[in-house]
């Protein structure tokens, strides 16, 4: 046990914590929210993407600090809720993205998430978890009908994962060298 714990700590020390340029996180968050809010007006298919979720996942995996990750997820989620209109109460996406931010930061602190395949898989997984959180919140807390998972959501998960691979590469440029 002692050796395992020692090895784990050694492994964790080898995972790099990335830092970003000043204002990069804020700018990326605001941009993702704006695009999410206005692009679907002109391109309805764009609604399948959840850019704020992808931003949350990316910064969670990169920062690798659960506290920072969950707080960032909370802020992004609440802002998304605020922009979503009266049908989405404040806290619906906030709760889901808080959890995603926490999970992404926790997993990012233990795994190498730089590989595109890992990013794809993790994004799909987080998308499902995110949808699960929303379904739970809607069903249990709001008593509203919400499917647990559908084919459309599966396709959306895959699309978001593909987009995430590309987006994460773009966001990597915001890191401090």
């Amino acid at each position, binding site marked *: 046990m002692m050796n395992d714990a020692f090895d784990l700590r050694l492994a964790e020390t080898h995972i790099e914590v990335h830092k970003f340029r000043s204002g990069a996180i804020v700018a990326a968050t605001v941009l993702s929210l704006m695009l999410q809010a206005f692009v679907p007006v002109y391109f309805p298919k764009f609604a399948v993407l959840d850019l704020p979720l992808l931003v949350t996942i990316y910064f969670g995996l990169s920062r690798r*600090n*659960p*506290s920072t990750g*969950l*707080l960032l997820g*909370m802020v992004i989620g*609440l802002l998304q809720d605020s922009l979503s209109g009266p049908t989405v*109460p*404040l*806290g*619906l996406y*906030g*709760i889901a993205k*808080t*959890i995603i931010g*926490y999970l992404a*930061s*926790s997993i990012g602190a233990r795994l190498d998430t730089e590989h595109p395949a890992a990013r794809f898989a993790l994004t799909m997984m987080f998308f499902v978890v995110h949808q699960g959180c929303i379904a739970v*919140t809607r069903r249990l*807390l*709001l*008593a509203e009908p919400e499917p647990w998972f559908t084919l459309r959501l599966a396709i959306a998960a895959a699309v978001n994962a593909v987009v995430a691979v590309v987006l994460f590469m773009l966001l990597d440029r915001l890191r401090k060298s």
Partner: protein
Amino acid sequence: MAGIPSRHKSVVLLAGVIILQVVLLAVQIKRDSQGRLLRVWTVGAFSPFERAGAKGIGNIRGTWSHYFALQNTSRENEQLRRENDELKMKVNQLQSKAVEADRLSALLNFRQAQRNVPMLAARVIGTSADTASQTVYLDRGERDGIRRNMGVITPDGVVGKVIESYRDTAQVLLLTDKDSGVGAMLADSRIQSPVGGTGEPLLSMKYIPTDDTVNVGEHVVTSGMDRIFPRDLPVGVVTEIKTGRPFQHVRVRPAANLQRLEEVIVLLTLHPLEQKKETPAPAVPTAETPGKSVGGTAAVNP
């Protein structure tokens, strides 16, 4: 957060943030039928505790009131007992008044049946100071027309006669006194014989010949021969018969309750009452219709 290990801080933060947002959700959402979600949740969350608390408090209160708060119970019990006693007293008073009303009603009926005899109702206000004499005092006297040797009755029967009249009171010698007597006869056989007191509750019918038949339970009424009482007033009931020579010893229980006299009627006349022939008994509640009179004498002590 200072006392929490650093590796758990994020978990605590996560929990706190999620809870805050859940509360935020609750504040916003309003269910159509149940009001704001926060209220629904709050009620749902608190109601089990409230139910449990209410049940617990109910049990505690029940235990307290049934086992520990006996001081108040005892006090209430005493109060209720007092009230019960007061109510019993009132009931007794009402019953007494009802009995009195019946008695006065009977007096009135008797008065109406004996219209030709002047009468005066009087209340018994005292009794004899010694046990040897059977006398009572009335609240009426000479000013009301009461004189010595006037007869005193109740609707139930003969009481006695006035032996002394004062200005505002009169003394009545009861039938049970040794010196008292009244002209009487057996109601069925019409055998006449004076009835006198013995100093005891029972009267004595003294001069019934041994050959005459007397039955226990037979009624004894006034014969009118003493010129004090009208005929056929109830005197008493034969309760005991002993053979003797030359007369039987017949014991009579007075018709009037001489032990508990409250109101009486004084016959306001000293003139000899006229003998009515073949007249039915007066309309007295306890009087029974007698047969024909065979005449006789009365022995009344002065």
